[in-house]
Every structure is written in C-alpha cells, then in structure tokens.
C-alpha cells in the first residue's frame, strides 16, 4: 500500500503563554527565519491548552502569509478566550508552508517576547522543539536537559519553567552540579500533560573564582525547559534562557 504523504512534514513547537494583569506575551511568526521561497504561502496556528483538562481550550490561525509577512498575536487578544485565574498556559505553534520542508529543519518556531509590569517575567525566546530537531541527544532511563548556570552571585534565584508537550504526566527532578559536589537535588515534582510547571530556588554563591554551577533537569518524558534568573530582593527577572540535552554527537560548524 503506498502513501501520498510526503517524506517530511511540518511539525509543531511548544511554548508557554504568560497572561493576566501583570504578564504579556507577544507571539510572532515570520517564515523568513528559515524559508526563502517567495512562491509559497505560509500559515501559523496557535493552540492554547487548559492545564486542568489537558485539552485545547482555544485555537487561532493566521490568514495565508507571504514570505515577507509577520503574523502577530498578543496574549491580551487571547485572554478573553481562556479560562480565568491562570497565568501560565501550555501552547503549541504549528507553523507550516503549503509545501513540505525542503530539509531536516521541519519545525518553524514562533518568537515569544515576554513582558510584565512588575518585571517578574521578561525575555525573548523561540518556541521549543517537541520533536524533529536534527540532533542526537543522550537518553537513558530518563531524559536530561543541561543549563550551564556559571558563577553563583549573591541575591539571585532561578525559576525553572517545565513544559510537558505530551498528554501523560511526567515526573522531574532538578539538580545542581559543581566540580566538588555532584548532582545536589534541589527540586522535584510532576508536570501534568499539556501544561507548565514551575519551581524556584536560590542559586548558591560560588566559592571559587571559576567555580561555576550547572543545572540538570531529569524527567520521565522529554520536557521543554526554560530557566529564568531572578533578583530575589525585587523579584525582577534578569535572564530567560533555554538549555540543551546531552549531545551524543560532535557539533562541527
């Protein structure tokens, strides 16, 4: 039996939507980030999931886009359609072209710009791969994400955002690693399917001049993890980053 389906298909990516009185998320998608074909038409579909049920609670789709276009939607536009009293939603951005992907880059992420009146959340991220990233990562009994925190300065804390793109819940644990002390467990918990979990803890102060710290997040399912650095005294976020898996290949550019 033969299939008409192309060998490669566009795949969705995941991100968290921060919304409410304090938070604003500006979502943007421009095909230009990896495409150059002016003859194609592109589209962006955003699906927001209700963390209580794990089901989609709102979906919106762009008009057909040309290569030059930029589709934008803000959390203030999405807010009236979403359950009340929730600040962080798991979302998927399904950005496609009307032709299959020309190479192994099968995901076109959206851009997220986070703002807040209080300063508690601010940063600029791309939506994360759920699958389809052309790289080879270590997977043992669990999945692992690594973030090189670097030196621990006084008065800083880390807020870790854990996104579960799957429908099953996933246990996770967060550990701090240094040269002298390996894998100190600092937090653990469970992220329900299609939702966002957060944990936060103080960053220990480094003792040596070069003695930095790394974070390892171990999880049952392949979570998407984002790390926010926060000034403890004011609660202001002063860094928002993603980590990487343990790569089983030599990256040569």
């Amino acid at each position, binding site marked *: 039996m033969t299939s008409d389906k192309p060998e490669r298909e566009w*795949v969705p990516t995941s991100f968290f939507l921060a919304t409410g009185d304090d938070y604003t998320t*500006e979502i943007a998608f421009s095909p230009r*980030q*990896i495409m*150059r074909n002016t003859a194609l038409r592109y589209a962006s579909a955003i699906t927001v999931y209700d963390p209580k*049920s*794990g*089901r989609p609670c709102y979906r919106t789709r762009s008009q057909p886009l040309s290569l030059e276009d930029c589709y*934008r939607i*803000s959390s203030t536009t999405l807010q009236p359609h979403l359950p009340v009293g929730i600040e962080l939603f798991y979302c998927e951005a399904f950005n496609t072209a009307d032709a299959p992907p020309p190479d192994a*880059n099968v995901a076109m992420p959206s*851009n997220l710009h986070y703002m807040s009146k209080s*300063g508690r959340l*601010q*940063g*600029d*991220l*791309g939506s994360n791969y759920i*699958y*389809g990233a052309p*790289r*080879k*990562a*270590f*997977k*043992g009994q669990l999945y692992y994400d*690594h973030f*090189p925190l*670097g*030196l621990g300065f006084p008065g*800083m804390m880390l807020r870790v955002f854990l996104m579960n*793109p*799957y*429908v*099953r819940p996933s246990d996770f644990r967060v550990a701090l*690693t*240094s*040269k002298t002390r*390996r*894998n100190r467990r600092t937090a653990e918990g469970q992220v329900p399917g*299609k939702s966002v979990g957060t944990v936060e803890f103080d960053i220990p102060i480094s003792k040596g*001049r070069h003695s*930095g710290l790394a974070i*390892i997040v*171990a999880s049952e399912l*392949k979570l998407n993890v984002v790390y926010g*650095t926060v000034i403890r005294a004011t609660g*202001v976020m*002063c*860094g*928002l980053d993603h980590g*990487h898996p*343990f*790569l*089983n*290949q*030599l*990256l*040569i*550019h």
Partner: protein
Amino acid sequence: MKRTTNIDSAFVCHCARIRHSELLEIFSESSNPSYEDFKQRYGIGAQCASCEYEVQAILDEFLGSHAPDIVHLPKGHIRDRILDRADSLRRWLKNLRRQRNSKEETAPKVNTRACMFFVHTGALQSSVVVSNINNPESNINPNQGTVLFRIQVYDSSGSLVQETKALTVRPNETKELFIADIFDHPADDFLGSVYVEYYDLVTTNTLRPYCVLNYFGPGGTLRSRQHYHDKLYTGIIPGFVQSPSALMPCRECWVAMVNCSTHEFDAILSLRLNSEIRRVTQHFSPRQSVFLSISQLFGLGIADSAVDAHFWIDSERYVMTYYFWHVLETDVWIGQHH
C-alpha cells in the same frame, strides 16, 4: 480537536494499548520504521490521535540513536561502569606512555570550535561559560575526563588580539571566565568576538559554549545575567537573522552582529515599520563585529507601546546575530535566546 484519553495511563497509545517498551520493540523489528506505517499496521495514534506527538518523538529519537554518526555512551550498570573505568584507565596509561615516547605524535589538536559575540564596557561585561558534565546516569565523562580548550579573541575590526594557552575544564566542572581571565592585559572597553576551540573532543555532550551578558548597574551591583550561545554557521540559511521584537515598549533593542568568516561583504539591514521599509547597508570585513541599537541604525526613538516593527538582515554570507534589549523600567538587559 483531538480528544485526550490517555492521561494518567502507562500506555503511550491508550487506544491501541501500546506501552513505551512495546513501541521500541516494534520499531526495532521494522526495517524502515515510519509513523504512518505503524498507524496503519498497529493502529497506533489512529483513533484519538492524542499520542501522535509522543510517538513521533519516540520514533525520532529511535532513528537518531541508530544514526551512523552516533557516539555510543556507556550504560549505567555497575559491571559496565567498572569495565568502562578500567578501559578509561588503560587508555589513559596508554596515552601517557605515548606522550613519553613521542610528544609530537600526541600533541592535542583542535577539532571543533564555536564563536560568540563578546563585549566589555563599564556596565556590560560578557563572560564565557563552558561546562563539562559527566553522563548523568553512569557518571562517566564521555570525553574521558578533563577537556582542553582555548579561547581566541578578535576585536571589532576582525584582528586577532588574544589567544589563551590551553585551558582545562575538569569533569563536572562549569567554568566562567571574564575578560581578566582571558586577556593578558584586559582593556577597559572591548567589543569583538570569541572563539572557543576544543582539543580532541569526542562528543559535544554539555560543552556547547555559552556567553553571559552581565550587566552591572550604578555602584557595580550585578543587575542581570542573560545567557547566549554560539550561532556559528558557515552557510547562508537557516539562521535567526531577524527579530519581530525590534520596537517593544520602553525597551531599547540592540543588535550584535559578527561576521565569523574570512570573507568581506555588504549586508542590507532592513526594518519594516508598519508598512514602510527602511534599509541600511552595513559593510562587514573578515571577522568584524558590530553592536548597534535599532535607534542608532534607523534614527528612531524608543516606543511607548508595541509597534509592528520587523528587523532582518539580507546578505550573501551568514551574519551571526544576537538581539538584546535594555529594559528601561527595571534597568536590566535581556536577550533573545533561540
């Protein structure tokens, strides 16, 4: 909309009652595994379809782990760990003997490198972070322990101004190096790029280098730490050479651009503001770095509210580009981290 029926179940596909281990068995028995094939043959993901992403992800991972360039890591069993450690010790002794016999023969060689933008002013101070973490299950270092690296620094005009001796990062060590740790005679103000070069690396593991943009406020208080990592790419696309957040309210967007190549070219920097497109030509000499704000580039003020402003770069060669924002209200610097 997809129905989600398999929450709180041990099955990956609840409808077809397939567990993770069974899925892997099916994959390994197939000569050419594909999601569509399994959907038709076993009904995986064929009914409610809520497991589609997870099955695709597991398949993707399965195919990746069987790719020809995969570096096989030791397993976590005690017997394997003892054997691997003995093997490591044998290799180390063998290397030691070789080193004694012929220093030239075993001289370490750079086999991978990555480039990042680097700035050092009174307030903004980049630092380089490298992290050499052991395998989290076996505690064995896939690069056989201590890793050697060096840092080359090019100034904004593209001249090589510093090259460190071989530095080390030990197992489970994360090292953060500021300008004083890299330069023999650090300048007060510096703008350029750094190349982190590893010697005889077996696998990248956690050694993808990062930089941190540290921002020190009045009185030298650390106000923000934004990580960013290499984007060295020698082709033209793909690359995040655009930002749809060029004019966000009460924050000034800065663009850091590095020509990582030895070629000279012109790039067209474009800003679409509502429907009007403004363009500026930027010349890049080999390895040149540029750090300019959108305001400086296009003669614009700082926006009070979100503006439909889209910045991008067109050029015959890849320009490694980072976007940073000085958030005026909270006086911190944040960055685009893709």
